[in-house]
């Protein structure tokens, strides 16, 4: 009998070791996706029903609260800068030489007609701080084995009450995300691809955002260059830097 118990226990242990808990998975996803600070250059390709536009920008972000973005192209948007501190956003437009403040509901509006809101573009939240996960199954996304994890908000003050995330089993990177309203209506879908190893972590360089309630083919968000945990001077996150 003793001889039988030990192998059974070992088998259970090995199964457990193969399937980490949802919390562990989210923790590893956060380690890959979030950082103390990030500096990246990106290209946003907005596919509207009538046309396609490309906007290039450079962004600096620190934690969940501070973010700064400067548009590099097209010429019409070049020099436009955005600063987000907590839940307030300031936009500087060089054509008007004015800084305007955006907050509250306006932060949820789309950025330049894209499928991203200002919040989506400028925030870098740690999932574990806001959600509790539950593994709901497995599925293959782009030939990679994924866990399907349902994230339910711990606190009432998060944008999306529920999220469904398809996490790559080997690289701990979400390859697909679905964001749901409180009522269960699907609001946005994200498809993450071009996963590369950067500074010792896996990171998707391309994200396709789709506001499912809106017409159009979505918005591609491509990271051209990215650096994690670099030192960003504090003055970047001040209103004075908007007019520089």
């Amino acid at each position, binding site marked *: 009998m003793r001889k039988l118990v030990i192998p059974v226990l070992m088998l259970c242990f090995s199964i457990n070791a193969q399937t980490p808990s949802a919390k562990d998975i989210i923790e590893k996803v956060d380690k890959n996706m979030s950082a103390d600070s990030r500096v990246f250059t990106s290209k946003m390709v907005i596919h509207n029903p009538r046309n396609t536009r490309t906007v290039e920008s450079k962004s600096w972000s620190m934690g969940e609260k501070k973010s700064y973005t400067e548009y590099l192209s097209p010429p019409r948007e070049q020099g436009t800068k955005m600063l987000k501190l907590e839940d307030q956003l300031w936009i500087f437009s060089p054509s008007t030489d004015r800084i305007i403040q955006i907050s509250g*509901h306006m932060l949820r*509006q789309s950025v330049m007609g894209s499928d991203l809101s200002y919040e989506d573009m400028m925030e870098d939240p740690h999932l574990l701080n806001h959600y509790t996960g539950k593994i709901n199954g497995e599925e293959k996304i782009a030939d990679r084995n994924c866990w399907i994890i349902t994230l339910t908000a711990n606190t009432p003050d*998060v*944008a*999306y*009450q529920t999220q469904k995330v398809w996490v790559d089993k080997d690289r701990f990177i979400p390859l697909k995300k679905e964001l749901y*309203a409180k009522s269960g209506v699907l*609001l946005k879908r994200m498809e993450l691809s071009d996963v590369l190893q950067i500074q010792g972590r896996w990171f998707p360089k391309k994200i396709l955002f789709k506001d499912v*309630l*809106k017409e159009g083919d979505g918005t591609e968000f491509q990271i051209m260059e990215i650096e994690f945990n670099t030192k960003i001077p504090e003055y970047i996150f001040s209103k004075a830097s908007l007019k520089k």
Partner: protein
Amino acid sequence: MKLLFKLAAKNLIGAGLRTWLNVIVLSFSFLIIIWHKGLLDGWDRQAKNETISWETGGGQYWQENYDPYDPFSLTEAHSGIPPSFNTLVSKGNIAAILITQGTIYPSGRIQSILIKGISSNQKLLKIPSALFIKNSEEVPALIGRNTATDNRIKEGDLITLRWRDVHGTFDAGNIKVIGIFDSDVPTVDMGQIWLPLDRLQKMMDMPGEATILVWNKEEQHSTISQGWKFKTNEVLLKSITDLIKMKSVGGIVLYIILMSLAMLAIFDTQVLSIFRRQKEIGTYIALGMTRGEVVGLFTIEGSLNSVLAGLLAALYGIPLLAMQASHGMSMPGGSKGFGLAVADRIYPAYSLGLIVTTILLILLTTTIVSYLPSRKIAKMKPTEALRGKIQ
């Protein structure tokens, strides 16, 4: 005095075409001033009446954080309806309105919208909220004609609405447009959607809360309530009053131009009369009239131009103004985009006060303008005047 009037009238008529030209020009001034002021008064009256019926009622209590010109204030501008008001709300004597922001997706397009929840049983405002009672199965919505046209929404359409609750969490659902109302007040129509108050309170997780309490005209608003500020109609309708005032000031420039033209003609006629009628002036004085009486005669002659102009203006103006008052004046499309209540047709209001004031104003101005050149008569030597010598 009677003689002076008779003589002045005789002289004036005797002057023929010169008089009639003056009278015609002056009658135009009469008519245009009355018409323009009547139009502004009519617009003012219509705009205020409509705004009171659709939006402001007998004044409003605003939640202390509410600022209609600052959409950022909306996230904080809500609190529980004061218990002392609850009876009046349930009776429908106070219309409670909760305001928040959201997004609609009509036919796959994205559109920001102001969501307003209004008590279904309210009887104060013309918003047809009673329709909510008959449609309780889905989330019923009412929209104004302009919003419906701009977003190509029809009655019976199901639209996806996305909003954020009190905690900032996204929520979405379908709403059914159960009615489209026609209102001349753009501030209850443009970019807005009306839902039953209780449904919106539930959607926003704000039970028993409101942003605005519309007060009944008949109710006293002396009840002081903490966290709420009372706004009288004088304050709420200030934008209309200011606009009309601004338009009136703009109108004064027009009146000055018109009156200047007419007065210039009268002044010119008076100067010419005195110059050409020196023998006549000398004869009047020789016959025993004092200089003052002769000055009076010429002043009356000039002033009578305005009386004749008034009569002429009445002759062709009354039918014209009456027709406009009954048919109204059509306003250009898109006037509502300015955010003020502009009806499709504006009906001018000609009050007795307006007509009397205009008559008195023109009479007084004409008298002054007629008197100024006539003063020269007082300095004339009668003997020289009799000889017709130029003085």
